[in-house]
């Protein structure tokens, strides 16, 4: 009964106000002397798909556990649908959670797994049945209801795990690397299904992953984390095209962005014997005087062949290693003493030792302050 009321309350508040679905304020979390999360703020809109992306150990799971109420905060507050849930039990927060290891109860059937929490909360039998049936239908696991988790494939188990969150009828779904234990093909399939599920249900979803492809394809917004801080929060387009700092620039994109040291004087950018007028570059903060900068060039944004007429500058490279990958070909070279990658169309005929002429467009440049590593 308790559970019911909570959901009811949450529904009402969600309807009346256009407030964030989940709101994290000044969150600190430490394990003993180790500070894992520091002064973290994050607002997630209702119905948004937010992905927490970062390398292993940066605190993504910890943040998710805080939202779920599985960890006690050191300081700060968490609001869900406008309610301050900082001290609320996980089951009282109106969340459902899906884990990397699925965490299914092995001795129960799929049906038992889906219904255990509900029956425990005293939801009437008929309603439990109905909710299980609905979740099973959405996830297409109806034929599996009588089976034990051990008799399911990885993909099926993950679906059941999602189902367990689904039957809770909650507004916020939390996913902690739900696809990491699956092989590549299944991962791609389930990714699409999760996206469909989101479109169908319209819930808020917070999704943790270290896989940037998952992040880019699923997210409305991505929060890229490092050492317990959010380095950039933005749409997939923004984090790819306007990385806020060097860390994000390097982290997003495969093959990784090329970096060259340079100098910026007014609108004149010079690096590696080149000099480019960057008046058209969308500066966020116009720098004054001379400045040491790092220039970032994505391998796929370099212009080769006939399009070079539009380039702001061109230079020559020697192909040292050629890696044909079918759809495209990656050429490894050296610029200004650093490894430099160029991505070409797969049909390009080139072999090691050839010379390659490469052009750059000002709008695809990324210029970072060399000292602060922030985008200019």
């Amino acid at each position, binding site marked *: 009964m308790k559970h019911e009321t909570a959901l009811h309350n949450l529904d009402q508040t969600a309807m009346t106000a256009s407030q964030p679905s989940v709101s994290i304020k000044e969150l600190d979390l430490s394990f003993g002397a180790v500070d894992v999360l520091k002064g973290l703020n994050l607002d997630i809109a209702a119905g948004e798909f937010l992905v927490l992306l970062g390398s292993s150990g940066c605190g993504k799971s910890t943040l998710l556990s805080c939202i*779920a109420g599985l960890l006690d905060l050191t300081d700060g507050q968490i609001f869900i649908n406008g309610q301050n849930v900082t001290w609320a039990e996980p089951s009282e927060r109106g969340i459902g959670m899906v884990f990397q290891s699925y*965490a299914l*109860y092995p*001795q129960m059937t799929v049906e038992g797994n889906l219904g255990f929490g509900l029956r425990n909360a005293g939801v009437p039998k008929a309603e439990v049945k109905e909710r299980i049936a609905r979740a099973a239908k959405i996830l297409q696991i109806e034929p599996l209801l009588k089976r034990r988790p051990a008799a399911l494939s990885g993909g099926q188990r993950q679906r059941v795990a999602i189902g367990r969150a689904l039957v809770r009828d909650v507004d916020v779904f939390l996913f902690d690397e739900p696809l990491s234990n699956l092989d590549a093909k299944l991962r791609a399939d389930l990714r699409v299904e999760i996206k469909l599920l989101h479109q169908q249900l319209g819930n808020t979803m917070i999704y943790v992953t270290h896989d940037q492809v998952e992040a880019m394809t699923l997210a409305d917004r991505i929060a890229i984390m490092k050492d317990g801080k959010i380095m950039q929060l933005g749409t997939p387009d923004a984090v790819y095209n306007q990385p806020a700092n060097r860390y994000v620039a390097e982290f997003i994109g495969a093959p990784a962005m090329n970096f060259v040291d340079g100098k910026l004087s007014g609108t004149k950018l010079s690096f590696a014997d080149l000099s480019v007028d960057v008046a058209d570059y969308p500066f966020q903060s116009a720098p004054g005087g001379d400045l040491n900068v790092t220039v970032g060039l994505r391998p796929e944004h370099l212009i080769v062949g006939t399009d070079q007429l539009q380039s702001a500058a061109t230079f020559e490279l020697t192909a040292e290693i050629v890696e044909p990958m079918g759809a495209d070909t990656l050429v490894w070279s050296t610029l200004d003493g650093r490894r430099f990658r160029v991505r070409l169309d797969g049909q390009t005929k080139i072999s090691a030792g050839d010379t390659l002429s490469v052009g750059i467009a000002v709008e695809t440049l990324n210029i970072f302050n060399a000292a602060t590593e922030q985008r200019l």
Partner: protein
Amino acid sequence: MQTQRPNALFRNLTAKIAALPMIATALFVFVGCTLWTVYYSFTKSRMLPSDKWVGLQQYERLWNTPKWQIAVENLLIFGFCMMILSLVIGFVLAALLDQKIRFENTIRTIILYPFALSFIVTGLIWQWVLNPDFGIQQVVRDLGWQSFEFNPLFNPDIVIYGVLIAAVWQGSGFIMVVMLAGLRGIDEEIWKAARVDGIPRWRTYVFIIIPMMRPVFVTALVLIASGIIKVYDLVKAQTNGGPGISSEVPAKYVIDMMFGNQNLGQGFAASTMMLLSVAVILIPWAYLEFGRKKHG
């Protein structure tokens, strides 16, 4: 230059030679000696092994001996209580220690140290603690409860429980360690999932964790059971079978018959009965273990 295919017997010859002690142990001691004893339990052996076949006579006499009957009865009571107590105490202790409490290492050290002690030492310690004139009974009486009665070692009806207290003291810490290893082996995310589902802790233990720990319970049970049948030193030191013959156990009966009473035939028959009871426990377990592995 070797052109012929080498004889299979001589392949890995060093390995085979190195394994000879193990093979000899397996064949001569575990198989050979066991069969020998079983065979001679059907003979008229007394002071020396004899080849005179008497069929089941030794067993008939065995089961008509009061000392053996008491020994078996004691073993059943002791065994049943020991299993239940060890499992319950072991699991509860492990669950308590699993609550991320402070001083976990200290507490575990205190609970486990008796396991390092021999049964002789254990028996003598508890002989002293349960001593009616100076031990617990007297301490409680000195506190003012004059009629307090707790004297297991000199009361034939409950002496086996006195042995039980000592055995649980010695062995339950070990079961706790086994259980704790099992608990720690359970996926942390199961606990998280149960919390998100709003399932109270005790319910999570009863409906999720304990069913998941079934193999650990079975292993613990087999360990306890095989220990129970071997109980000898503890009784020897704590009560020496007394008062009278009221705390005799089968293992002690065997040794007494073979080396004290010079009645080998009875010893062989009694030890064969012990073997039989182990087989009754072990074979179903091995079957389960084996079956489980086969089904992946």
